């Protein structure tokens, strides 16, 4: 065998190994987190950790429920804001927008998705937090003094601020996915609806959205899973003071990723503290993996149906 075939063989083996290595990272990380988290699971019941919001590490109480619900609270707010915004924009891009305009809008939107989270964080502190503090919070909390608006947090650093910043961050991603799903629908389907005298809006509402629904759900889930893991920007605007279970969109909140980033490596003298943080990370990982798998499952199913 001459030298070039050896090189070919070597390259093939090497690249395969690298590929396996990258794939194994996920399992290594998951196993490592589980291994590191196991002391805290051994020390107390997992129910006490998952369902209690009693977070007093120095007394050995590690209830993560406040952080978990905090994460869901912020993410939920982000979705409520981001989904209508993304969906309507995606509809415009896929169904109404002339190709030339779309060719300009899409790259700009992708730029938006590429901005560093810390920049969004700064924008959040400078724009969104004051907006919540000076306008949204006094208005809603004053007029609707009940759940989920009533609050006595006048700083503006709140779940809503976190949700708004997150929404802006995941919107470009969701738009681009949704738009792809809608444009993947065969042109003839639109044509046959329009040929019967339907307007574009009727066609979109009755045909396109119906066909695209699973894909849109998948796009929302993928956006969600991105939002859940987002750390920096949320950490900067959400207040990060533990309030137990969320009671208001204007209260401060403390999501899981922020907890991990804020405290890991700081209070290591407290027994089991690092194990509790590892458990938080493991929970985050599991949520993200499950969401992603669900979304890709839906998208794969759609792709098969079309072909």
């Amino acid at each position, binding site marked *: 065998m001459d030298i070039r075939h050896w090189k070919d063989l070597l390259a093939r083996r090497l690249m395969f190994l690298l590929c396996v290595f990258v794939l194994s990272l996920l399992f290594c990380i998951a196993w490592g987190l589980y291994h590191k988290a196991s002391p805290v699971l051994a020390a107390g019941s997992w129910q006490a950790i998952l369902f209690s919001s009693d977070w007093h590490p120095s007394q050995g109480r590690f209830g993560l429920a406040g952080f978990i619900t905090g994460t869901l609270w912020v993410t939920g707010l982000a979705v409520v804001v981001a989904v209508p915004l993304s969906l309507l924009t995606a509809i415009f891009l896929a169904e109404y927008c002339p190709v030339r305009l779309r060719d300009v809008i899409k790259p700009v939107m992708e730029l938006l998705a590429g901005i560093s989270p810390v920049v969004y964080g700064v924008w959040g502190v400078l724009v969104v937090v004051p907006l919540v503090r000076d306008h949204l919070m006094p208005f809603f909390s004053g007029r609707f003094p009940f759940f989920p608006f009533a609050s006595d947090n006048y700083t503006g650093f709140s779940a809503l601020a976190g949700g708004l910043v997150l929404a802006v961050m995941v919107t470009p991603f969701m738009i681009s996915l949704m738009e792809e799903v809608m444009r993947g629908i065969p042109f003839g389907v*639109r044509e*046959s609806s329009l*040929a019967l005298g339907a307007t574009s809006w009727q066609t979109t509402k009755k045909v396109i959205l119906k066909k695209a629904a699973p894909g849109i759900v998948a796009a929302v889930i993928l956006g969600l899973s991105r939002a859940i893991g987002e750390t920096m920007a949320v950490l900067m605007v959400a207040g990060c003071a533990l309030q137990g279970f969320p009671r208001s969109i204007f209260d401060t909140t403390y999501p899981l990723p922020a907890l991990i980033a804020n405290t890991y490596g700081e209070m290591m003298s407290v027994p089991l503290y690092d194990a509790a943080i590892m458990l938080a990370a493991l929970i985050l990982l599991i949520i993200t993996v499950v969401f992603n798998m669900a979304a890709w499952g839906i998208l794969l199913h759609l792709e098969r149906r079309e072909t």
Partner: protein
Amino acid sequence: MASEVSQNHIRVRDLSVRYGSTRVLNNISIDIPDKKITAIIGPSGCGKTTLLKSFNRLIDLQEGVSVSGQVFVDDEDIYDPKTEITHLRKRMGLLSQRPQVLPMSIYENVVYGLRVHGEKSKEKLNAAVERYLKEAHMWHEVKDRLHTSAAKLSIGQQQRLCLARGLAVGPEVILGDEPTSALDPISAEQIEQRFLALKDKYTIVLVTHILRQARRLADYVVFLYLGNLIEHGPAEEVLNNPRYAKTKAYLEGRFIEEPEIEKELDLIKLTFPESLKALEKVFKELKVGQVLRIVSGEKNLQGLIRSPLVAQHTVLEIKKRDALTSEVIMQKNEGGYSI
């Protein structure tokens, strides 16, 4: 214009269509006869589908399309900006190459058009479903599963469902864009039977690349080549006795050649006595087998073709340059063949 009673549903006047810088249709003028089957034939890429879709303005959906000229549907110029497109489209049912069922039940597919136009009465919708599924000859196949997904039907059934759906909005015209090309022979036969049964009630325009289908179905034939209207007329005439060289070549399955123009005469700028002299001169100079192109004003065209000077020549093609001028391309022949 509205006073003329015997007008055809669809009249095309000097229609040109471009996609970006490519010209797809070139000054087409034609009347589509009512309550007959008209077949648009021609090789692929010659503008058949574009012509068909210009009738209900579906070509508007193409990016970068520009249209000039007029298409009259019931005396209304449909390219007039004031035209209500949704109402225009309601008057034409479309069958596309592949059946495109909507993502809903069989029942909802049939009533889709009625619903988008605001029909709410349950009885009317029920009646329409039965009536049009019967017209499409599939009522008995599906009457027990009207509320199951239309996507589960066979492809031939889907195409008949599309026909029922198109008929349900009460059109005057049915447009078919190679509607049998994706179907198996039996389903294709069923669709053809439907067309023959429906032609007394509807004006049917079909794009087809299957000559035998044109022979079986068409009453009237339109032959397009590279965006030009080469020939149109009653089916027997065009299919059995084509007037022009290109039509003949296409029907016989030969390669269509562009004639090489050896001489050219522009009559536009000449007035009567000079033009006649110029004509006589050019005909005298033309050798047997050579091809001559004469550019002429539209109103002198018929006189020119019928003139005794032309008798010794075969008219290969008459091409419209724009609304007012045409090109006549003719070849000098040995024998006495003339048109």
